[in-house]
């Protein structure tokens, strides 16, 4: 093995690939070779570091310097200055959005410092294509431990004691799920990893699959041992090609090292894995639909019970865990359930990864202890809301969840508190909204998603969500009428109670929760034909304030549809019939004379 004095980590997650990390990586290798330091400095492509907004990012070790938004043309300077001369290139450093201070060191940046990384312990740290790097960080030691020191019952007990709950949606006890599957009668059982991540904006599972695939393989093998299964399937969507490729390579490496296959560690335990690629239907994240899809059928849910733990894949007892859940398993085994229980709250143990998006300075993935408040996540970890705007609401749980308001900023983020507020943890989507966001429009957005993703099998979800969406469309167009809110509520209650699967049962949540906290916005749309946030285009009116207008005529010149008219040096007017509400006049007015309401 060669000695390197420095290692440069290039984030190679799908998000950074989109922002051009491959070109940066090539430039880096080129410049390092040119500087003649290729035997001193090693370039390592890692998985997602989490700061997707800031990509492409580089971390230079041993000092852990974090460079953000690196362009290929910046690379020359980094190599010459930092790698050759040891001088940090401060213009590429991260600047704290609140204090405006630059922070060179990765671990000192509040975004990272505020996190507790268990599930994401390796992503962004190791090179996912090198199994040795996973092993160096105690990879497969947990598997070794359970196979040589623990009985399956002890493994299940340990997971149960840890208090780990499913990270994919409902938060069912993982230990209990394992126990039920272990106890179900049947010689043949399966372990399935649900990697059909579908919530818009959530990508923690992708990040783990891409950046730390071996942790999932190891966890599935442990689960296989615990429940008595020798075959696992990873159901991952085709839209995650890098995750599929990294996972496939990891499986092959694990087989080469006999960490998958027959007689693992010489203990007689056999376990192997296959990847099944799904077409990315949201509903296939529902476990019975996922099973149908793996079996080769249309991905549609079936009524439960029977639960997959008794009758799953091909009718056999099947354990289905989500990616993030599985990623927690090896650390629990190695460090013990007691260690894990110390993280989090009484009923929600451990950490949760949130995919923070929307009106927030640092978007990306953050892993924080359960029970951290929304305020801490938004302001301490994620750098607050851009443009000095006010926080209005946060959507948790994606399209199946609901919203939290400013009143809830200090509520601990954990399974039960979220449910009691009419939302849910879901898979950890966290969308931050500021004062410019219309809550009716947000509800409409999520419902549009779920009604489109409905499998169409059961009546309430297929037709009911469509009818709700039609009402919401009308309201946001200014065509709402008295009785619409009541109709929405009646439909929502019915869909929740009578749909076949979790997709339908949770689809009305965004509407119910925005009705609960922002009913007055609905009423303003319906009764006053007004969008209080000024977001619903059909309800916006642009008007020139005569006392401010100096008659310069810029507005009339930029208007694409000749809706503005007037005489120079006297106030102009907007013809609201012609106006297409593009907002260009308001943007261009030098005197801020154009109001939007």
């Amino acid at each position, binding site marked *: *093995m*060669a*000695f*390197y*004095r*420095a*290692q440069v*980590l290039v984030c190679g997650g799908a998000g950074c690939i989109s922002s051009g990390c491959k070109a940066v990586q090539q430039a880096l290798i080129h410049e390092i070779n040119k500087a003649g330091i290729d*035997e*001193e400095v090693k370039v390592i492509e890692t998985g997602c570091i989490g700061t997707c907004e800031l990509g492409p990012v580089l971390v230079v*070790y*041993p*000092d*852990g310097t974090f460079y953000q938004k690196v362009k290929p043309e910046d690379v020359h300077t980094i190599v010459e200055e930092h790698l*050759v*001369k*040891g*001088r940090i290139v401060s213009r590429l450093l991260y600047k704290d959005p609140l204090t405006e201070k630059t922070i060179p060191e990765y671990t000192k940046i509040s975004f990272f410092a505020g996190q507790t990384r268990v599930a994401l312990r390796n992503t962004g*740290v*190791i090179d996912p294509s090198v199994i*040795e*790097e996973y*092993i*160096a*960080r*105690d*990879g*497969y*030691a947990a598997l*070794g431990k359970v196979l*040589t020191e623990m009985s399956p019952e002890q493994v299940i007990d340990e997971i149960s004691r840890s208090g780990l709950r499913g990270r994919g949606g409902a938060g069912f006890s993982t230990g209990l799920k394992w126990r039920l599957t272990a106890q179900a009668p049947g010689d043949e059982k399966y372990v399935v990893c649900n990697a059909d991540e579908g919530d818009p904006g959530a990508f923690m599972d992708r990040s783990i699959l891409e950046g730390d695939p071996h942790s999932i393989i190891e966890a599935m093998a442990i689960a296989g041992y615990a429940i008595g299964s020798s075959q696992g399937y990873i159901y991952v969507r085709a839209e995650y090609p890098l995750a599929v490729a990294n996972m496939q390579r990891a499986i092959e490496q694990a087989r080469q*090292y*006999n*960490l998958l296959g027959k007689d693992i*560690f*010489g203990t007689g335990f056999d376990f192997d894995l296959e990847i099944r690629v799904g077409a990315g239907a949201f509903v296939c994240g529902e476990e019975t639909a996922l099973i149908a899809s793996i079996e080769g059928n249309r991905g549609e849910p079936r009524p439960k019970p029977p639960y997959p733990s008794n009758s799953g894949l091909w009718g056999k007892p099947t354990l289905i865990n989500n990616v993030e859940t599985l990623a927690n398993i090896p650390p629990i085994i190695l460090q013990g359930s007691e260690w894990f229980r110390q993280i989090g709250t009484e009923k929600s143990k451990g950490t949760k990864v949130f995919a923070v998006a929307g009106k927030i300075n640092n978007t990306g993935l953050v892993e924080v202890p359960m029970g951290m408040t929304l305020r801490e996540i938004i302001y301490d970890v994620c750098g607050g809301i851009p443009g000095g705007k006010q926080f209005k609401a946060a959507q948790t749980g994606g399209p199946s969840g609901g919203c939290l308001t400013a009143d809830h900023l200090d509520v601990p983020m954990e399974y039960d508190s979220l449910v009691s507020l009419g939302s849910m943890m879901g898979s950890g989507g966290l969308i931050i909204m500021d004062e410019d966001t219309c809550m009716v429009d947000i509800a409409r957005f999520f419902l549009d998603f779920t009604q489109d993703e409905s499998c169409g099998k059961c009546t309430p979800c297929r037709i009911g969500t469509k009818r709700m969406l039609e009402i919401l469309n009308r309201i946001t167009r200014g065509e709402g009428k008295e009785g619409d809110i009541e109709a929405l509520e009646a439909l929502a209650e019915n869909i929740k109670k009578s749909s076949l699967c979790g997709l339908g049962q949770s689809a009305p949540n965004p509407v119910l929760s925005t009705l609960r906290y922002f009913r007055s916005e609905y009423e303003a749309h319906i009764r006053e034909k007004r969008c209080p946030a000024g977001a619903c285009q059909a309800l916006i009116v642009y008007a020139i304030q005569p006392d401010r207008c100096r008659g310069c005529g810029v507005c009339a010149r930029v208007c694409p549809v000749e809706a503005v008219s007037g005489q120079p040096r006297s106030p102009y007017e907007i013809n609201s019939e012609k106006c297409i509400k593009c907002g260009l006049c308001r943007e261009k007015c030098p005197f801020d004379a154009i109001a939007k309401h």
Partner: protein
Amino acid sequence: MKSLEDLKKLRDSARQMMHLREGGDSVRIVIGMGTCGIAAGARETLAAVMQELERLHLYDVVVTQTGCAGFCDKEPLVDVILPGQPRVTYAKVDGERARRIIDEHVVNGRVIEQWVIER
């Protein structure tokens, strides 16, 4: 891989590769790589340090650079910081001195006093 022992062996050797990223208590060697340092031959010093560390399998030693320290005529300057101990700065470290410093100071903990200009 046949046993847990095999895994442990592999882990221990693989850890060296990860050491730079893990941080923690380790010996640090800091080489002055300002313009003056490079002019005085700091690049050769750096190369010698790395070769010697590799020869001795000292993968957990962290090697970094620093800029001009103000003693331009004493370059190349090399700091050795053992965990929990103050920094020791050596002056005019060429390749030969660098190897000696590693053998004596880093491996055996004996400071080579005659080359030290500051501690």
